[in-house]
């Protein structure tokens, strides 16, 4: 029984036992990685290295590089140094030429019991500040979007490696036999594109399934669909039912070859699953059952927040249904900057608009997860591929900031992290991460840890070597664990 799919590759041939192989490779919707309940139980029992604090991840990806010093990392010293050169040398490799120090155009205040600093751009997020664990010391991505996005998503800035969602799918499987383990909502096709949710050398079923064609600009939430999904209408399904019966009948007496029994049975199962998926998946994306209160909570009734609100609401629905890793991308282009958060110029206009688009939806998502009891088992991660320089970028037009991979802020909420906690710090000017530096490998190690996986033991043998999401590095940021 079960839905044993079949996969053959070099790695696979090293397994001597077919049964073992079927278990370890089992199931998966490749594109839409379905796993059987059997499989899920198998993983739940066998693959976690220690008890998990979170069952799933929602990654709110801010494409382009949000400016930490204008959003969460308050640096009053920037005012003192305003208009001056940095008191230390700029990094050697820069993306653009940089100028003098510029304080944030926005005022900051401390919010909630936690006293997190947030700039005046945030109107809604302060109400859930005490759920948030700030990570102020992210560092070591890359100074260009491509390398930085790939580093953030896959741990490598230059080589093709499995993405973190794929590792999660590989390590834990899915909790739901009818949905993929890793769904990425409205992804961008820029800067690594599909490789940022790819499986690389992991079996194909672990790759992220895009809900919405990857594109630039990214697909609007209202147009997001799974690929090659049929219409699901009764007439088509009836014909397909007949086709499946014939496939089964022909398969049953087609081969005398014992070595084909498993792969052919797997094929048959994959057809059955595909068929069922067409019947059941449309329900996930059908928001008609959501109350007007919920829609409003996510800002779906306001034009500015409608699109991202819908993405966040879809993320919650996927989380409820047991999808292991859900990525939500805030990755449109703006009239004055190519990538959503990439304010080389127009900092004030761009960041004001961007925060306005996500503030309410993200707050709504945290409140909604909390109200449904999902927050404690769901790790929410917010952030982009780098921060922005505390200095201005030289150039024409309204002022902006350059890419900054040396110290920036991400945050987590729910899923086993200390609420209201602050981890790490940048220097006085927000330039270098100086306290509890958190590299991307450390971030990945920590996320895996929260999911019950030891990043040093979650390995996959490829070309004679055991590969990890964290390569040969990564330390868990233990002090953030609740």
């Amino acid at each position: 029984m079960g839905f044993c799919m079949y996969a053959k590759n070099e790695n696979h041939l090293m397994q001597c036992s077919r049964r073992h192989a079927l278990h370890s490779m089992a199931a998966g919707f490749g594109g839409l990685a379905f796993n059987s309940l059997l499989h899920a139980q198998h993983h739940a029992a066998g693959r976690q290295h220690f008890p998990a604090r979170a069952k799933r991840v929602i990654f709110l990806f801010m494409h382009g590089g949000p400016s930490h010093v204008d959003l969460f990392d308050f640096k009053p010293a920037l005012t003192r140094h305003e208009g001056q050169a940095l008191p230390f040398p700029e990094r050697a490799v820069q993306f653009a030429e940089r100028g003098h120090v510029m304080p944030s155009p926005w005022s900051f205040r401390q919010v909630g019991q936690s006293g997190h600093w947030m700039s005046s751009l945030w109107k809604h997020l302060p109400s859930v500040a005490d759920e948030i664990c700030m990570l102020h010391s992210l560092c070591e991505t890359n100074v260009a979007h491509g390398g930085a996005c790939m580093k953030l998503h896959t741990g490598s800035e230059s080589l093709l490696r499995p993405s973190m969602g794929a590792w999660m799918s590989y390590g834990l499987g899915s909790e739901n036999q009818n949905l993929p383990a890793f769904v990425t909502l409205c992804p961008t096709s820029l800067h690594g594109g599909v490789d940022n949710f790819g499986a690389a050398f992991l079996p194909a079923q672990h790759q992220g399934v895009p809900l919405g064609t990857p594109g630039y600009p990214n697909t609007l939430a209202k147009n997001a669909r799974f690929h090659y999904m049929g219409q699901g209408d009764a007439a088509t399904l009836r014909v397909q039912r007949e086709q499946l019966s014939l496939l089964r009948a022909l398969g049953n007496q087609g081969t005398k070859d014992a070595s084909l029994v498993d792969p052919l049975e797997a094929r048959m199962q994959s057809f059955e699953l595909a068929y069922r998926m067409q019947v059941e998946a449309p329900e996930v994306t059908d928001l008609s059952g959501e109350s007007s209160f919920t829609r409003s909570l996510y800002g779906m009734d306001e034009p500015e927040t409608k699109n991202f609100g819908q993405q966040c609401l879809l993320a919650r629905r996927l989380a409820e249904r047991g999808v292991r890793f859900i990525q939500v991308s805030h990755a449109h282009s703006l009239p004055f900057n190519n990538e959503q958060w990439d304010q080389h110029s127009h900092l004030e206009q761009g960041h004001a608009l961007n925060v306005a688009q996500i503030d309410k939806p993200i707050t709504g998502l945290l409140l909604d997860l909390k109200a449904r009891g999902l927050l404690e088992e769901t790790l929410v991660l917010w952030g982009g591929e780098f921060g922005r320089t505390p200095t201005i970028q030289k150039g024409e037009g309204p002022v902006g900031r350059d890419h900054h991979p040396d110290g920036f802020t991400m945050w987590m909420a729910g899923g086993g992290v200390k609420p209201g906690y602050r981890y790490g710090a940048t220097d006085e000017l927000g330039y270098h991460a100086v306290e509890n530096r958190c590299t991307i490998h450390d971030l990945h190690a920590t996320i895996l840890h929260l999911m019950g996986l030891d990043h040093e033991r979650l390995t996959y043998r490829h070309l004679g070597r055991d590969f990890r999401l964290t390569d040969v590095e990564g330390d868990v940021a233990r002090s953030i664990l609740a």
Partner: protein
Amino acid sequence: MKRCYHLLTAFGCLVWMSRAFANEGHWAWKPPEWPSIPTVVDTSWVRGPIDAFILNQLESRGLTPAPSASPETLLRRIWFDVLGLPPTEEALEVMKRSTEADPWVKVVDALLASPHYGERWGRHWLDVARYGDSNGGDENHAYPHAYRYRNWVLEALDRDMRFDRFLQAQLAGDLLPRGETESLAGTGFLAIGTKILAEQDPIKKQADTIDEQLDTLSRAFMGLSLGCARCHDHKFDPISDRDYYAMHGILKSSEIVEREFPTPAYQAVLDQWQREHPFHQKAIEEIHALLREQVDSVGAIEWEAESFDQGNVVIDHQHYGKGIGIISDPGSQDNYVEYALEVARDGDYFLEVRMAAKVARPGRLLWDGVLEEDAILQTTTGGWMPEHQQWVRLGVKHLTKGAHRLRVESKPLMSHLDRFRLRRLHELERFQALQEQAEIWEAKRESWMAEKPSVPMIMSMADGEVGNARVHVRGNPHQLGEEVPRGFLSGLTPAAAGLMEKDTSGRLELAQWMTDPHHPLTARVFVNRLWQWHFGRGLVPTPDNFGTTGQKPTHPALLDWLTLDFIRHGWSIKRLHRQILTSSVYQMSSQVEDHPGMTRDPANQYYWKAQAQRMDAESYRDALMSVAGTLDPNRDRKAPVAVKSQDPSPQDLSQNRKTYEAFSHRSVYLPVVRSHLYDFLTLMDFPNATTPVGMRSETTVPTQALLMLNSEWIQAQAAALAQQVGEWGENDRECLARLYRRCYSRDPNLEEQKHCLELLRTMQQEKNSEEAWSILCHTLLMADGFLYVR
């Protein structure tokens, strides 16, 4: 580190050695040795040495080989294997009627000579060469010339290029002696890899690019991963970081260049084009001669542009006017110059200017304060510099004897004007008529120039600044350690390091070192690849990893024999195919019941039967189109159809898919856009084209099923097939039998017939006959019987 060397050959010319790490004596570091061909009991089964080696192993395990596959099954197997296409109905008929005892030699020879052979086997190599038509990585720029490498591979296989040459061309085609110019395109191998184009650190970017090249070439040709040694001595294989940087230096001394590649086809088109040239040229020259006759040189005035009487322009003698002196604008303004002229006698005058302009900066002409021409200085001359100066006509004017003022205006910028010339005409009408003719001919010449065939370009390698590399400490290109002389893997051979020429990169020496008949890996790795592409599994089951972490050969003696035999017979790939395809082991049945092998060797490691194989992505697409009659079998070696590779929008991707679906040629000619591959191919396990893939993974996932069920393109193939069925006659049973022969190369059995006709009847209750057949065809095209080649 302890190093001990182990003498392996006695030839004396080259000493191949194995450095002992923790893996002394690893089989793959030792050059192959001729094994004796084993004796067997059942000699009747043995058609050649391959069979002897296989049967010897089987007999020693108490196993017997499966019987031969049926002729239809075998024909289908060989067609898919050699051409990647299903056998035609005619080929099937010929086979059925054949009375020859062993028709296969003839069949195999014919298929190996088919132009479709290169399309199938070239594609296998392109997997290893991680061939792509775009950069992939962070910035997915198109590689518009990469396909010339693809074509080169296909053609090399078609004409059975020796494998040692094939390798040498790919690493050093530009350095091979004259007469090998056709090898140049082979160097695309090193050029077409993924690069992180937006990397802001040029030193890291170069190091990353070289790393990619080194890892690719070592894995593709030697089955070794070099990547680890970028940061430290390889833990498992005999590759020290010094070795790595010895090879790094070779590639650091080389560079990727796009260059002109005048192919014979291009040359033919160019010759054809050039033949028209003198015709234009002669006419134009004749007219100009006549025009010259019309100009009276007596009383001509010629003056320097900078000798103006009034003006607001600048004079330049330093740069644009070096050696001649020119005038131009000082920046954006209403530029003008005026000249006071004294005309000696009445007449029609012809005015010209000597000027240079890269882009047109038009202006106006006034005589004595009156506008004469409002669109002068429109001409471009190819540049701004003195060497771009040429005489340009300004117009004809009747002037009376005496003083005149000529004014030239140009705003906001002005071309670079050097001199003016005013000459009297003998006969104005004649002059103007000739001028009109000249313009007609010049327009003709211009359109002819526009049709000049553009020179093909290739991505290739060239030697750059030659020099050794220094070790990057812990892989950091900014932290340099000791300098390492360019060289190869000293763990495999210390001798070759000293053979490097001082003033060339060393790529040629590298290629020669790798193709030395005594090299322990190169030929073995390739022979194993070839075996694996035929049988679905290599004699070494890890084709890209011959290191100590790879698997050992199941038949080491056979691998050695095949390797040495391959080298002895001139590295001929087609000969090796022939040996394999005509062997008994290849021709066994895969459909075996109640065989002791099922319990004693369930994985069929020892080849007691043939192994059914699932079609790969391209074979599936080509086979669908082939049976549907929608495949255009003519080669399409043009540039791949254009699709959007960089930053595609969802609309672009949907347009891309339409482009792919409308493409009627074989799949090998589809563009391989990294990161945005045609999803049909990706879903059917087409590799991602960023690293060498010796063996594709084979997944069975429900997205494949969704693709097969719902792809409108697959449904269209089924409909095209059903339309033909409609033309075959009224008898459903006969139509079904023919449909089976078309799709499965065999007749249906009674059970299959029953089930298929049942579906047909059910569907015919609510749909017309062609729709019902279309649904049946669609089902048969996604069934195991179609997808699995037995």
